[in-house]
């Protein structure tokens, strides 16, 4: 199977502090991988680097997305190419409705592909359907993006955007944090509904509990900026029992 995402020996730093130190990971089309790691291991840095966040400097290594050099692309170009980041802490954009944002995002894609902008009614139908599956009310759709949303509502809103934008690769950064059991189930259903042979998901998480609902093809353990171990879903189970201690870097 051809790989959709190929990260090789990635080194990245923030404000001069190295965070990622030789991370390599390959994700095939249609696969769901989980990246698990303790706080400070570089999970969110990985997500931000993938999305093209400016403050994160890649100092070595490469990322290829569908055969193209991802590091060469602006954040919006990555999005249009099919990369989606579900943020750990989605920001509020007051006065810009969710519908408006989704419309602009879809229009940007249509424009880049030389297609016609989706009709308003089509868009609305698509958004409402996805929203209903996530228990997001019409009233929430009209509110400003994440404006006054609870932590759980913000995460559901990320999944809503993902469902509407139909990315080829969804990178979900701690989407499960701050969610109660019911919300985790709803969100997991949303993520599962996206699974198909063409789409891939990279779940970045601290805990195993999300993986009770979404069975990954592969699990990677990220500690100290590099993948220390990879395996099947059973790796996550082991981790739950034993913790990250055994993957801790050895003192030099």
């Amino acid at each position, binding site marked *: 199977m051809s790989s959709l995402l190929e990260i090789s020996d990635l080194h990245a730093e923030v404000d001069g502090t190295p965070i990622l130190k030789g991370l390599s990971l390959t994700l095939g089309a249609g696969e769901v991988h989980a990246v698990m790691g303790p706080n400070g291991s570089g999970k969110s840095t990985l997500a931000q680097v993938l999305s*093209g966040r*400016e403050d994160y400097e890649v100092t070595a290594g490469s990322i290829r997305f569908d055969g193209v050099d991802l590091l060469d692309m602006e954040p919006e170009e990555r999005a249009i190419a099919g990369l989606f980041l579900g943020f750990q802490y989605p920001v509020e*954009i*007051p*006065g810009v409705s969710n519908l408006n944002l989704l419309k*602009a995002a879809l229009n940007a894609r249509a424009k880049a592909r030389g297609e016609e902008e989706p009709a308003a009614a089509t868009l609305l139908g698509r958004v409402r359907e996805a929203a209903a599956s996530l228990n997001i009310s019409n009233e929430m759709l009209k509110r400003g993006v994440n404006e006054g949303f609870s932590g759980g509502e913000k995460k559901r809103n990320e999944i809503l955007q993902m469902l509407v934008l139909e990315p080829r690769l969804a990178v979900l950064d701690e989407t499960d944090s701050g969610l109660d059991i019911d919300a985790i189930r709803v969100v997991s259903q949303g993520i599962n509904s996206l699974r198909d042979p063409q789409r891939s998901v990279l779940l970045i998480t601290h805990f195993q509990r999300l993986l009770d609902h979404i069975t990954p093809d592969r699990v990677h353990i990220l500690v100290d900026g590099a993948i220390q171990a990879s395996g099947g879903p059973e790796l996550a189970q082991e981790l739950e029992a034993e913790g990250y201690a055994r993957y801790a870097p050895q003192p030099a």
Partner: protein
Amino acid sequence: MSNNVPAELATVLGRREYAPGFTTDIESETLPPGLDESVIRAISARKKEPEWLLEWRLEAFARWQAMTPPAWSKVQYPPIDYQAISYYSAPRSSDGPKSLDEVDPKLLETYEKLGIPVHERAALAGVAVDMVFDSVSVATTFKQKLADAGVIFSSISEAVQEHPELVRAYLGSVVPSGDNYYAALNSAVFTDGSFVFVPKGVTCPMELSTYFRINERNTGQFERTLIVCEDGASVSYLEGCTAPMRDENQLHAAVVELVALEDASIKYSTVQNWYPGDENGKGGIYNFVTKRGDCRGARSHISWTQVETGSAITWKYPSCILRGDDSIGEFYSVALSHHRQQADTGTKMIHLGRNTRSTIIAKGISAGHGDQTYRGLVRVGPRAEGARNYTQCDSLLIGSDCGAHTLPVVECAHPSARLEHEATTSRIGEDQLHYLRSRGLGEEEAVSMIVNGFCREVFRELPMEFAVEAQALLSVSLEGAVG
């Protein structure tokens, strides 16, 4: 020299030895630069004004001469040479470009970005509009409809001829001729503007817009607008200044007076996009405007909505005098200053009557080296029992070289008044920008989306087509604000 030229004007011109002189066509005449009594007499004569109006102008001129330009605002500009300005210019449309092909392509590009329909683009660019579309029939239908309703909508010069008693009764009754330096100057030399009169009980059947009149007459830089609604009447007036002016540092000193009698309602919306000058602050309009509404009758209602994106300097405080009991004043404002633009704007809500209410929502956006001040006064008089005001001032900063200042003043002389004030200052965050870009929006589109969201409370007060235009304007004005 044409025989059409009034004797007085000819005298002035002769004396000044204005080299180009007059063309034979009275409609394209321009007075040479300079200001003294004879110029004012010439203007008044040219407009065949009644004696009382000439007297009024001369009195304003005398007051103006004794005044000094206001120095309390934060705006900075070199002293204006009032003798270097020409105070009367009535260019004939045929002096302008003959067709859109002759218009500066840059100008057309801007209109296109704004989504302004072709015939309006033509009008704004000064093209003789009847070559593009049949303006005569449009204007006629429209005038007939208003006349049927009893609404008077004309240029103020025409109103002086046709309805002198109405003009005389209300002109200067809200903004007296000696009100301030620029209002006094305007009173002395105003050349044209709009007049609206809505009689008792009539709801104006359409939104009135300066677009309609632009075809007929090119209003000068000292325009004067007077809108009167009698008891129970209502009107919505749209002032579109979307023509980017090509002149350098031109002074625009307009006066707008609104009078609302009992139960009357006036909604005045402005989208101002005069030429702001270039990135380095060269050129641009000085927009020194006095706008005031008088809620003269009980339960009257005056609402100002302004979107100020243009001008090198904006100095403008659309205000309401809440004289009638239970009257309502509103001010919704978006002001943008980019590059070297300066905006010192806000409002005054003067509560005189009982149970008067006012709302102020002011949104300031600063980018580049833009500087922005909200300056407001809420005054509650000793009779204004139960007065209420809600003020909200929000500033949005883009980049690190711009400034935002909020100067709200409250004067309260009645213990029962309830006054609320909220203010925020925020910066467009990297987080917000990155969030939108990660959804596929380009950087400029992302900025414009954030800014439009910030302004939403004001935009929703605008009539639909104006709101669309205002959003487009903000995007165009903010081009290059980031990155």
